[in-house]
Structures are given as C-alpha cells and as structure tokens.
C-alpha cells in the first residue's frame, strides 16, 4: 500500500453493497484507495475518532441512525472531511438537502463504476480543501479586521448588492450580519452632518475619480459617535462603466480621542502656567530660555515672552549675588540642575530686573527629560520681598512681646496645648514659688487644686475647639511651700496661620488677699443672714401658732355646732322617746317620737311640768317619787308607766332614766329615754290569752280523758247517798226505829252530797277558762288540790300516792289554774305509765322543795317503765304521744305554761326505774310594775 493512499471510510450496513464499492474502488488504481468499513453510525464515529480519513462514503440508512441525522452526526464528528452520500434512490430534492446538511456529493448505488466513484471522491476532496482554505482565509481576515478596527465592504454596482465584512457592522455598532447590507443602510449609519459629504465623494469616484478617501463621523445606534476613515476604489469594466466599489472603513475614534485629550491637556497646562503668580521658565541644555510664563515676564520686567526666549536667563536675571558679587553660570544652582539632573531648591536668592532693580526670590528647579534624556530644566520662582518684610516685622513683634512678657507685673506663661509651661515670667514664679526651670519642667494640671482642675480643663478644651476665644477663671495653685494661692487666670489661644493651636497665653494674677477679704465679708454676711433667718423663723412660727389656734377655735365651734345638729337630728330620728327635764321637772327637750306618741308639739309642752298633764292620775304619785329619786342622784332607773296623749289615748312607755350633773355634782337635767310598749303589751296579752285558750282546750281534753274516772268518782258519793237514804226508810219502817241511826244516815246523805258537789266544783274550777291572772299561791296547796282532782284516777289504777311537800316554802306568783293543769298532766302521765306495768308496784311520788336561784321545784316521780332515749327527745313535741288515745298536747303546753311563768320543765328518765318530771317556778319577789 503506498504511503499516501487515500483513506476512505465506508459506512454501509448492507454487506453486498459494501463489497461492491470496495471492489469498484480496488479496480481503480489498486492500492490508491484504502477502504475502512463501518457497519453502523456508532462504529463509524469510533473509527472517525481514531483515524483521519480523506473521505467518508455513507449510506444514510443505518441500523442505528437514519437519513440526514446520520449525515449531520458524521459531519459534526469530522467537519473537515468530505462526506459523500450513498443512496439507493436518485432524488434531486433529497440531494439538495444532503448538500445543505454538509454532504459534498451524492452517489446513486449501482450507477457508475469505480472511476466514477474515484472521481467523485477526488472532486469532493478538492472541494472540501478549497472550502476549508477559503474559510480559513475568511476567518483570518475577519480577525485582522477586528483587531485593527477595520471593515471592508463591496458594492456590486451592476447588481446593486452590497457585502459588508463583520468589521463594518462592528464599526457601525451592530452585531455582524444584523441586517442585510445595502448602500442606503451604509449611508444611514453615517453621522447626519457628514452624510452628504461622503455620498458626494463616492459619487465622484464613480464618475471618474476612481478613488476617494475622507474622514467622517458615524452615529452608532447606542448614540455614541465614532470617527472613521473611509477609503474606496471603483473597478471599471472595459467600457469604463463602474462595476464594483471596494471600500475599507477604519475606526479612528481612539486615536482621535487620544489626540483630543492631548490637546486638551496641553491647553490646560498652558492655562495653568500662564495663570500662576510664580514665574516659570524653561531652559535647554545650553541655558537658553525655551519658554517663559507671563508672571516670569512681568516679574523680570520684560515686555513679552519673545524677549526672553532664545536668551540666556542666567545672564539676564541671575548674574549677581545679593552681596553684589557676581555669580557665574557654572556656580548657579539652576545650571547645576540641567547638568546634573538633580532638583534644587533655594529659598533666599536675588534676581535682577530688566531695569536693574532686584528682588528677593525663592526658586525651585526641576530637570526636563525627553525619552529619559536630559533636555533642559524648568524653574519656578517667587518674589519673597513681602514675605521678608513680614518676617522682620514678626521678629520685631516677638521681641516686643518678649519684653512685655518678662517685665509684666502679673504672672504670665506660655503654655503648650498639653498644658506644659513653655515660657514663664518671674512674676509667675514669685506667685507659685517655683523657679522658671522647675515650672517649665511641669504642667499647670500638676499645680492646680483638684477641685478647680475640671473647670479649667473644660475651658481649655473649648478654647482649643474654638468655641471660645478666651476665658477667665478664679482658681487655686499649690505653692511650692504647700499652701494654696488664689489666682485669677486669663487664658487666650495663639493659632498659626492655618488656624492650628500653637500655645496658650496665660495671665495669672495673685488674688489671695482679695479672696481672704471676700471670705471675711461673706462670713459676716452669712452670720447676718443667719440671724435674720432665725428671726424670721421665730416670727413665722409664732404666726403659725396663732393661725393654728384660730383654726382650732373655729373647728371646735364647728364641732360643737355639728354635735348640736347631730344630737338634734339623732333625737328626732330616734324611734325612742326622749324627754329632758330640768331640776323642776319642766320639759326642756321633747323629741319627735314624743310628739308623735302624744300629739303635743315641743312648742306646746316646753317649760311645762310634765307630771301635770302627761301622767295618768293613778300613777302620778309613783312617777313623781321616781323623779325625785332621780333628782337626788339615784340613777339609772327603769320603770313603766302610762302617758296620756293629747286626745286622751293612753300609751304604755317603758322608761330608762338618767341624769346630767354639773361639776358640783348637782343634777342639772333628767334624761328619760322611753320605748312605747303599748303595742307590745297588747301583743303579750294576746299571746297570753292565746296560751290560756290553748291550755283551756287542753284541760277540756284532759277532762274528757278523765271522764270515766270522774264519773266513777261521782258515783261513789251518789251510791252512798242511795244507801243512806234506803237505810233511813228501812229504819223508819221498822217497829222501833233508832233515831240515832236515822240521824247518822241523814248526816251521811248530806255529807256525801256535799262531797259530790265538791268534786263538781273542783272540776268546774279546773275547766274554767279563767282570767289569766297571776296570784300568790302556796305550791303545796296546788299539789294537794290536784291530788283531789286525780283521786279517783289514782285509786282506779291502784296507785300508791306519796307526797313529800317541803315546809316553809316561799310563795309563788302564778296562774293557779294553769299550774294545776301542769301538775295534773304530770300525775296522769305517771299513772298511765305505771298502768303498763302489770304486776309491779305502782308508786307515785310528788316532791316540792326550794331550788337554786330563788326558785321552787316540783318533782313528779313514778315507778313506770321509764322513758327511752328516743322518746325523751321528742317528749315535749306537740302532737307527740305514746298513748293509744290522746292527742299529745299535754307536755308541750305544760312546758309552755311553765316557761311562761319563768320556770323550766324537764324530765329525768330512768330515775331508779321509772321517770321523774321536774319543773321550777320563780319565787315571788318585789316587782316595781
């Protein structure tokens, strides 16, 4: 195989077709074509990556790819290798498509022999190479254009078509190929003001000039302006007709800009140089003036720059020293500069004017270099004559100041901004006792009393900040000896020409003496003030006491007034009757309750003796006696009596009385407070009545229960009467009647009849409603009476009755019927209780005796079964009964009666087998009703 064999990649999956192609190619110049076979796209791509082929033959229908996509993929993978499509079909449209997709040529399978294939391959290869080369050139050109900001364009005048390179688009400010290029668009991109000029130039070239070149501006779409150099040539045909215009655009903007900047800078520089007050001149290496600014010209006294340029400056202006000695150029520092290349600065020299006068100068010289080589020097100088004068004046002033400073009577100091004593005068040293050196080694903070330091520093800072321009204060310094010195300090701040603080100037005045005098004065004044204050305080105090006294008096009066009003109101609002009598029983106060109760107004009764008209005649003497007792000082006392109202009504008042005595113990007034108990009394009586009725009803019912016994009891005397009567008749009928017997019989009749009557009488008495009147009675009598009443009952129940009645018992004040009822009830209960005991003994015992607390006690004891605890509790309940028949009112009423008398009724059950009922009654005492 020859070394330069053409490498062919055949991408064909059909083995027959592949073999055919290979065969055909091998027929042509054996060995010229080296065919590699790939049966799929994937295989093809792999092979492409390994080997650089000269051409690729590809069947577009592959197992793993189809149609144009195959083509594209291969084209992508080997962009510089010509691709020839193998197709089974001859399809022109498809051919075009393949060409557009990157195929160089198109072969129909089965058409053509090996030579044809070889030719196609060769042409395809050639074409590819040419295209590649062209493409490369194009790219290079574009690159060159871009770098040089150049664009080229071609205007085909015959066809009217334009072609612009990328550079042209860029210069115009567009993206390459942003729009189709035309001449009109070309002109549009040109700055309006220059457009006509450009168009004319191009037309002129077309007419015969052949070429044109001009600079003009271009307006970019972003609004920026560019400057371009536009050059072109016209190609003519044989007849002299313009065919084509070949143009080149070059963007000059950068360069133009740079020139502009340079120009502007030069201009500015010139302005500065011309404007400065200092003189500036330049010299070359020979010392010849190259330029001079107006200030230099003026200061040296010449007419214009021209007068100086070309001359030797040194000879003109810098030839002689101040002292008059001449100065050769070689010794001139300026000269040195453009020789050595070093800068120099001289601040005290002299220059000479044209007219021969001189002036003091300060100057600076710098070397000039061009491309690193010395080419001359530039000097700037200033007239310092004035400055010199000022300096001299300043020195003089300082001198004067120093003198003043030293000789001042007061202490003076120059103090640094940190507070150090920079310069001190002797006076100050005398004040504080330090030597100048000692003082200058310290600062004012050290010798200032600590209490004054803050104030001082505060002012210092204000001064430094410029808030104040001076301050003055009294402060203390510590003398070297250790005692304090009072000084008056005045401070101002010296600033330099920049306004920066330089140092303080302090003036110190010894004011110790003055201070002491002030202190003495102050003390005196204080003392005086003190005394005045004291005096004032005393006066104020006295005033206050006086006011308080007055206030107190007023308050007391007010209180009294209020008390009076209060007591009046109180008296009037009281429900109780309040009447105040004087020592003669005359009415002094008579409250509203009294008015309401009696119908008299205070006005009607005032001053009248109360007993004359308010009392019931029956009570008058008793009440008066009480009044006299009160007046004699026996109080408090209580009693009840009637008041007779204006209309004659009687009100029962319960009084509680007291008296007011004066400081000698004599009764001034009698105060009686009463409550109208008329209603209450009525209520009490009603209640009593009610109770009495209830008791009566109870008695009736008791009697009802006792009916049998009563009947039986009556039966006895009646039976006896019948017997006696019959006996009488028999005796009288007999032959010899015994008169005595008859008498006995009749006597018996009478006696028994009386007995019966007595029973009935007792009964009636017991049953009577009776007035609820209390009367004095002997309890034993009551007991006996009850026993007679219950006699039949007792005997009927075969009960043994025992009476143990105390002797010498005091009397009681009771409602006899009611108490008898109580005793009878207890007796009957006892009998009934024992009746339940079948075979046992039936003993009823009644005891009377004195009891504690000034009372009488009655005990009714039986030998019955006793009372169980559950019954005891309920015993005194109304309607509670253990009896078969019986309404059970007895004990409740008994208790009510006993308690109504002020006594108590209770039971002690199981009193040695049985029950014992007890009740007490108060003994009659003296009552003041």
């Amino acid at each position, binding site marked *: 195989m020859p070394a330069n064999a053409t490498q062919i990649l055949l991408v064909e999956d059909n083995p027959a077709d592949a073999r055919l192609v290979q065969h055909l190619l091998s027929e042509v110049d054996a060995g010229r074509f080296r065919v590699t076979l790939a049966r799929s796209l994937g295989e093809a791509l792999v092979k492409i990556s390994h080997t650089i082929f000269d051409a690729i033959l590809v069947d577009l229908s592959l197992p793993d790819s189809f149609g144009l996509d195959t083509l594209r993929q291969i084209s992508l993978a080997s962009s510089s290798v010509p691709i020839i499509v193998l197709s089974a079909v001859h399809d022109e449209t498809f051919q075009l498509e393949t060409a557009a997709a990157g195929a160089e040529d198109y072969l129909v399978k089965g058409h053509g022999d090996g030579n044809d294939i070889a030719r196609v391959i060769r042409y395809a290869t050639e074409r590819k190479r040419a295209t590649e080369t062209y493409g490369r050139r194009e790219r290079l050109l574009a690159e060159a254009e871009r770098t040089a900001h150049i664009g080229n364009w071609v205007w085909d005048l015959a066809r009217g078509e334009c072609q612009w390179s990328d550079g042209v688009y860029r210069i115009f400010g567009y993206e390459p190929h942003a729009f189709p290029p035309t001449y009109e668009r070309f002109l549009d991109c040109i700055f309006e003001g220059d457009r006509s000029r450009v168009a004319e130039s191009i037309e002129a070239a077309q007419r015969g000039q052949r070429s044109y070149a001009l600079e003009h501006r271009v307006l970019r779409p972003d609004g920026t302006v560019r400057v371009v150099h536009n050059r072109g040539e016209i190609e003519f045909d044989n007849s002299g007709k313009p065919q084509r215009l070949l143009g080149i655009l070059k963007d000059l903007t950068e360069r133009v800009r740079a020139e502009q900047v340079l120009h502007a800078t030069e201009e500015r520089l010139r302005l500065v140089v011309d404007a400065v007050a200092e003189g500036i001149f330049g010299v070359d290496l020979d010392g010849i003036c190259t330029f001079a600014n107006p200030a230099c010209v003026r200061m040296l006294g010449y007419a214009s720059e021209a007068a100086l340029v070309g001359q030797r400056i040194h000879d003109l202006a810098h030839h002689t020293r101040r002292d008059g000695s001449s100065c050769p150029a070689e010794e001139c520092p300026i000269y040195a500069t453009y020789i050595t290349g070093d800068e120099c600065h001289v601040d005290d020299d002299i220059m000479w004017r044209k007219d021969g006068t001189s002036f003091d100068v300060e100057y600076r010289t710098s070397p000039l270099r061009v491309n690193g080589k010395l080419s001359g020097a530039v000097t700037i100088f200033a007239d310092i004559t004035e400055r010199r004068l000022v300096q001299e004046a300043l020195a003089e002033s300082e001198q004067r100041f120093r003198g003043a400073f030293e000789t001042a009577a007061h202490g003076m100091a120059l103090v640094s901004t940190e507070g150090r004593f920079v310069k001190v005068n002797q006076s100050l040293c005398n004040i504080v006792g330090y030597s100048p050196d000692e003082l200058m080694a310290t600062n004012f903070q050290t010798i200032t009393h600590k209490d004054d330091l803050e104030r001082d520093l505060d002012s210092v800072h204000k001064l430094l900040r410029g808030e104040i321009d001076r301050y003055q204060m009294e402060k203390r310094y510590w003398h070297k000896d250790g005692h304090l010195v009072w000084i008056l300090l005045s401070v101002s701040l010296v600033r330099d020409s920049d306004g920066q603080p330089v140092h303080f100037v302090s003036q110190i005045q010894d004011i110790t003496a003055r201070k002491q005098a002030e202190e003495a004065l102050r003390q005196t004044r204080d003392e005086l003030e003190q005394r005045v204050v004291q005096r004032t305080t005393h006066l104020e105090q006295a005033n206050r006491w006086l006011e308080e006294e007055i206030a107190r008096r007023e308050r007391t009066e007010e209180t009294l007034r209020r008390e009076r009003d209060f007591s009046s109101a109180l008296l009037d609002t009281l429900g109780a009757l309040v009447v105040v009598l004087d020592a003669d029983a005359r009415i002094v106060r008579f409250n509203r309750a009294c008015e309401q109760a009696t119908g008299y107004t205070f006005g009607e009764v005032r001053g009248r003796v109360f007993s004359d008209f308010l009392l019931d005649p029956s009570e008058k003497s008793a009440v008066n006696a009480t009044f006299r007792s009160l007046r004699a000082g026996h109080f408090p006392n209580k009693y009840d009596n009637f008041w007779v109202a204006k209309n004659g009504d009687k009100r029962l008042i319960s009084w509680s009385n007291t008296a007011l005595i004066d400081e000698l113990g004599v009764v001034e007034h009698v105060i009686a407070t009463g409550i109208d108990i008329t209603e209450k009394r009525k209520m009490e009586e009603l209640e009593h009545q009610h109770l009495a009725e209830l008791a009566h009803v109870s008695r009736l019912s008791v009697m009802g229960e006792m009916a*049998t016994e009563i*009947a*039986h009891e009556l*039966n*006895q*005397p*009646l*039976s*006896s*009467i*019948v*017997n*006696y009567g*019959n*006996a009488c*008749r*028999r*005796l009288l009928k*007999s032959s010899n009647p015994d008169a005595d*017997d008859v008498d*006995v*019989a009749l006597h*018996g009749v009478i*006696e*028994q009849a009386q*007995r019966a009557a007595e029973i009935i009488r007792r009964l009636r008495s017991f049953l009577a409603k009776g007035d609820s009147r209390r009367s004095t009675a002997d309890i034993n009598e009551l007991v006996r009476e009850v026993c007679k009443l219950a006699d039949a009952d*007792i*005997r*009927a129940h*075969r*009960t*043994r009755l025992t009476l143990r009645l105390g002797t010498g018992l005091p009397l009681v004040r009771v409602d006899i019927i009611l108490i008898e009822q109580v005793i009878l009830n207890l007796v009957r209960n006892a009998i009934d209780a024992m009746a339940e005991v079948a075979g046992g003994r039936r003993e009823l015992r009644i005891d009377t005796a004195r009891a504690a607390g000034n009372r009488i006690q009655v005990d009714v004891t039986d030998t019955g079964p006793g009372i169980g605890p559950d019954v005891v509790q309920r015993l005194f309940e109304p309607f509670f009964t253990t009896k078969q028949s019986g309404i059970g009112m007895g004990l409740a009423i008994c208790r009510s009666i006993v308690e109504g008398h002020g006594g108590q009724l209770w039971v002690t059950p199981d009193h040695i087998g049985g029950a014992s009922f007890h009740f007490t009654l108060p003994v009659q005492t003296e009552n003041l009703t």
Partner: protein
Amino acid sequence: MSADEAATIFIVDDDAAIRDSLQLLLKSAGLNVVCYESAELFLEAYDTELRGCLVLDVRMPGMSGLELQRALNERNSQLPVIIMTGHGDVPMAVDAMKAGATDFIEKPFSDEDLLTRLQSSIERQQRQLAEHANDIELLQRLSLLTPREREVMDLLAEGKLNKVVAAELDISPRTVEVHRARIMEKLRVKSLADIVRVSLMIS
C-alpha cells in the same frame, strides 16, 4: 227475811262512806255486818268457818278484789262473793265472775236489789254447806268399808250384776249380796243408785 244468826255480811271497800252507808242499810234490814277497809285486812280475819256473804268493791288500791277472790279460792272458800262495780266496770265484772264470784251489783243500787242477792247467796251457801257436810259424812262412812267391800262397791257402781261381780272377785254371788247389804248399811243409802252416786262423788 229470816235472820240466820250464823250468817254475817262482810263488806270490803276502801271508801268509808260506802262502808258506813252499807252497814247502816244492812243493819236496818236486820243483818249482821262486818266491814273491812282493805282486802288484806279481810284475809287476815278469814277462816273457813265463816258463814254469810262477802260484798266486795271491785276497784281497790293495794290488793284488788280479783286478787282477793283468787286468794279465797286457794283456801277453798265457800263464802259467796258479791262484787260491787262502778260505771263502766264490765271487763272487771267479767273477770270477777270467772274467778268465781257469785253475783255482781252495779252502783248505785237499790236496797231491795242488794238484799235479794244476799239472800240467795246465803241460801246457796247453806245448801252447799249442807251438801258438803253430807259429802263429808259420806266420806267418813266410806272409810268404814273394808277393802273387799270397797271392791264390790266399785264393781257394783259400774252396773255389774251381782253374779258378775261374784265371778270377777271369785266369790259366790251370795257373798256379793252380803257385801252389798253391808255397804248400804254403812253408807246409809237405800238403793243401788245411791251407791253409784257416792262412787261418783268420790271419784
């Protein structure tokens, strides 16, 4: 009214007036009267020889009328008892009758009423006493019988014929006849019926 000197009326009542009035009344009727104010006192004085009638108040404290009756019954008292009741004492009266009271009378009562009852009570007692005496005598005579006679009597009293008795006792009928005659003689009875009666009495 025939006054029997042996008959005394005993009055037991706690009410003095009742005692006195009754005493006067009965005396006026010619009777002997003795009063006791309590049952206990009467009991102390009691003996079986008392003849007459007891008039007893049914309501008394201490020993009641009923208790006295029971006490008397224990003593086999033959004394007739008339109880005096008050108004509404019916239950007491019933108890008293059950306890052997002869009669009762309700206060106040007429004298005729009382005397009549007393009479009949006394007569009854006499009769009873007579009977009792007879019976006593009879018993005495009975003790005179020999054991054999006693046997014969018992059998005869059963209604057995002589020969049956003879057969049972293994004696001759003749002997039985002999015994029978002796029995009647000793007992002083006249007929077989009387023998039966005596037999019944002693059983």
